[in-house]
């Protein structure tokens, strides 16, 4: 197997690391000296629920209903996680049970 030249690979990794940390640090650097405007206070409160909604939808975006198993393992296991968590509010129980159910369903369906 012909490997890519090491300086190129390490250079690309360095660039990726710099860009990623820049994305993560931008808001902190921007508001280090200045006070965030009131609208940022408002957004701080409602961004987490909105992002969690988008991340759940992101997990389901590639789902195909056109062919077997019609997205049933994903939907059923996800509902099981949500209902179990509403009922018992035990994070590990909800996640382990839902994941186990999913692993079974994708093998039998």
């Amino acid at each position, binding site marked *: *197997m012909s*490997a*890519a030249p090491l300086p*190129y*690979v*390490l250079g*690309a*990794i360095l*660039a*990726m*690391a*710099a*860009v*990623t*940390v820049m*994305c*993560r*640090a*931008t*808001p*902190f650097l921007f*508001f280090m000296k200045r006070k965030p405007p009131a*609208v*940022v206070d*408002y*957004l*701080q*409160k*409602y*961004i*987490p*629920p*909105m*992002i*969690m*909604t*988008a*991340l*759940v*939808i*992101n*997990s389901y*975006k*590639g789902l195909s209903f056109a062919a077997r198993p019609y997205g049933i*393992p994903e939907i059923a*296991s*996800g509902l099981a*996680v949500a209902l179990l*968590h*509403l009922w018992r509010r035990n*994070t*590990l129980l*909800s*996640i382990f049970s*839902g*994941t186990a159910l*999913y*692993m079974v369903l*994708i*093998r039998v369906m």
Partner: protein
Amino acid sequence: MSSSVDRRATRAAFEASVPVLLGYITIGIAFGLLLQRSGQSWWIASVMSLFVYAGAAQFMAVGLLAAGTSIAEVAVLTFVLNARHMVYGLSLLDRFAACRRFKAYLVFALTDETYGILTTVSPPPGVSPEAFYARVSALDQAYWVIGSTLGALIGGLIPFDTRGIDFALTALFIVLLVEQIRSVKKAAPYLVATAASGLALLAVGPTNFLIVAILAAIVGILPFRKALP
């Protein structure tokens, strides 16, 4: 800080991070295996997971590096994929304001999953938020580094059928969403985010969906400022 408080912080952080343990080890193994099979030395996987630490971007990089894509293009694509993290920080300004020693690391290590835990799970009573945040962040990254290194070294030898275990991360996001609904009992943010996600899927398709959805949600929640507290 006394050592019993330290132990409680570590214990709580470990418990909060167990779902990430399942997801990051298995997805990390998949990443390491893929990278090693693309012709890279095994330790490149560890270096990437230590210094880049961004799952989706690392998977993307496997193909880009194998194809010899220019470093400038790699940087631009990484930016498009990770721009959503700018928004994450925006909602952590207050939470991280009191952090000192570990603040730089907390910002560096802010993945989707760690963000979800830090914004949703409260530190146990008596434990400083920073101590809890730092432990969750470091544990999550340790799982990712260990998983990707294992995958690159011995991924091909793993005899178990782990297919589907990565559903743990989907389950984690569902649990965190349920917890958000318990604490933010207003319909607007969830409806706005769902509508924004639908529009984003229609507009750009699944590939760059997340950043478009999040930006659209932020714009969409602004008109509710008078109505929400």
